[in-house]
């Protein structure tokens, strides 16, 4: 019987009882063939490998392709309990890549290198790109400081009335006239990707009393923070990110608080170079205590950037406290230096422990989000919007009803403010009458109101148009349902 060969590697099987002088050579050749399979470069004879149930393939090196190039690397984590499971699928069912392992809840990360993007394709086209997607991840409205319905870019002096400045951004001041707020104050170039910023300028060198506090703040409605589940055991971590620039350097402060002001988380951020935009990121563990008005139209989370806070309202950075805190102990006081500036934009508060790219929303969408809290009709400022036209129905010789259906339903029953009536007019079939006042005497709803227009001249019976002139002067009224 002659020598035979094995099925897969074609190893020589010396004839039993023969090959007296050649069997050793044949065996050595076979051993060399087997050894070559395990060449470090993976250049050995192609083989199949069956890793049976309960058996493992230990992989420390790389998987390379047919050209010898790296295809897959593995990275070992000491004491790892979670891993990835690949599953194929039958006809009509998608294969899956699944996070699996010992933990009850396991996240899944796709990590690009450098500025590389993460993209998903369907039918050959991108349907997802992680660097520009995840719309509405930002809980802050007007974080890019684009909308300024009230002031149209004009400066606002902060007062104890805690005036709103750019849309959704409220100035807080324990003493009037210590700082101003203006869209694009100082006309510096915003950071790349932004066209606007909120600029605060100190109006004096103000010493802080223990209870003094100066801030720029935004209150997030409880409906928009409900999923963060703060005040419960499932409170989610959030990350705050923003671009900031100041004429001062040092450690600045702010805080996250609840609307009731009995929960506070002071935070700090360093500005290392004066008059230079710097991007900051702060991760905040969700608060498992306190009341956060989740799922209501009341105030939920309040974000505060301190421009100066006295000791009474300053606390330890990076920790929750059950008290009224607006900043971190020892933080820089912007109002302490006359003329000091504090500019900010790109403010984003999002779920998770990582700051992601800014959530750019269409202008119309951002405006509509702002209008849930404030909307103005007519013209504001010399560069304001055009005038608006309404139906004006005759009530009596001195009063018209002017029904208004808001551009966006409001958060709650709003207040009405007559800003100016200069240039407003009623035109009917028979007459043109200058309007001298807008007012409200019956309760509006969150969707509609009937404003009253009055005049020193008598109106004639009939219907007509009430219009506010656009152009060169402020001539407007507004509705506010701000928090």
């Amino acid at each position, binding site marked *: 019987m002659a020598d035979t060969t094995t099925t897969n590697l074609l190893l020589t099987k010396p004839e039993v009882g023969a090959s007296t002088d050649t069997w050793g050579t044949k065996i050595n050749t076979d051993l060399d063939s087997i050894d070559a399979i395990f060449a470090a470069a993976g250049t050995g004879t192609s083989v199949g490998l069956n890793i049976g149930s309960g058996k493992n393939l230990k992989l420390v090196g790389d998987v390379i392709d047919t050209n010898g190039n790296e295809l897959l690397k593995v990275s070992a984590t000491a004491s790892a309990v979670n891993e990835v499971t690949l599953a194929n699928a039958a006809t009509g069912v998608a294969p899956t890549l699944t996070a699996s392992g010992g933990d009850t809840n396991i996240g899944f990360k796709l990590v690009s290198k450098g500025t590389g993007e993460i993209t998903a394709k369907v039918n050959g086209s991108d349907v997802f790109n992680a660097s520009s997607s995840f719309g509405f991840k930002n809980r802050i409205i007007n974080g890019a400081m684009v909308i300024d319905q009230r002031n149209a870019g004009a400066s606002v002096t902060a007062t104890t*009335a805690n005036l709103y400045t750019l849309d959704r951004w409220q100035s807080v001041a324990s003493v009037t006239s210590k700082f101003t707020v203006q869209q694009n104050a100082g006309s510096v170039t915003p950071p790349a990707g932004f066209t606007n910023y909120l600029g605060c300028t100190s109006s004096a060198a103000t010493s802080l009393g223990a209870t003094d506090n100066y801030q720029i703040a935004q209150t997030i409605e409880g409906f928009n923070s409900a999923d963060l589940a703060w005040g419960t055991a499932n409170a989610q971590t959030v990350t705050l990110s923003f671009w900031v620039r100041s004429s001062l350097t040092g450690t600045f402060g702010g805080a996250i608080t609840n609307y009731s002001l009995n929960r506070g988380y002071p935070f700090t951020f360093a500005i290392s170079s004066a008059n230079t935009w710097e991007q900051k990121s702060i991760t905040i563990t969700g608060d498992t205590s306190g009341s956060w008005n989740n799922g209501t*139209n*009341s105030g939920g989370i309040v974000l505060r950037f301190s421009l100066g806070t006295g000791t009474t309202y300053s606390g330890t950075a990076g920790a929750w406290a059950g008290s009224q805190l607006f900043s971190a102990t020892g933080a820089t006081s912007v109002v302490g230096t006359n003329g000091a500036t504090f500019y900010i934009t790109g403010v984003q508060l999002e779920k998770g422990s990582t700051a992601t790219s800014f959530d750019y929303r269409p202008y119309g969408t951002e405006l509509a989000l702002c209008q849930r809290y404030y909307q103005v009709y007519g013209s504001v400022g010399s560069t304001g919007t055009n005038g608006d036209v309404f139906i004006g129905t005759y*009530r009596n010789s001195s*009063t018209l009803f002017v029904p208004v259906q808001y551009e966006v339903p409001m*958060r*709650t*029953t*709003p*207040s*009405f*403010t*007559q*800003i*100016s009536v200069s240039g407003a007019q009623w035109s009917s079939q028979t007459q043109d009458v200058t309007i001298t006042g807008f*007012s*409200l*005497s*019956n*309760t*509006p709803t969150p969707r509609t109101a009937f404003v*009253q227009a009055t005049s020193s001249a008598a109106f004639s019976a009939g219907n007509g148009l009430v219009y506010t002139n656009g152009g060169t002067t402020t001539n407007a009224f507004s509705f*506010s*349902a*701000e*928090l």
Partner: protein
Amino acid sequence: MYQLVTPIIGTEVQIVKKANGDGTITFIPLNAPQNSDYIAFLKWIEEGNVPTPADE
């Protein structure tokens, strides 16, 4: 600081107005517990203040 407003429809006073000192006048609904201007008005009342009666 605040003055009640005579309703043009009905008789129950529903609005209080406030001159803001900058030429603007704000009209605040009195039955809007989530309205921050109304909340501020209630605080003003709690401090012992009384609004001016409505004009006849």
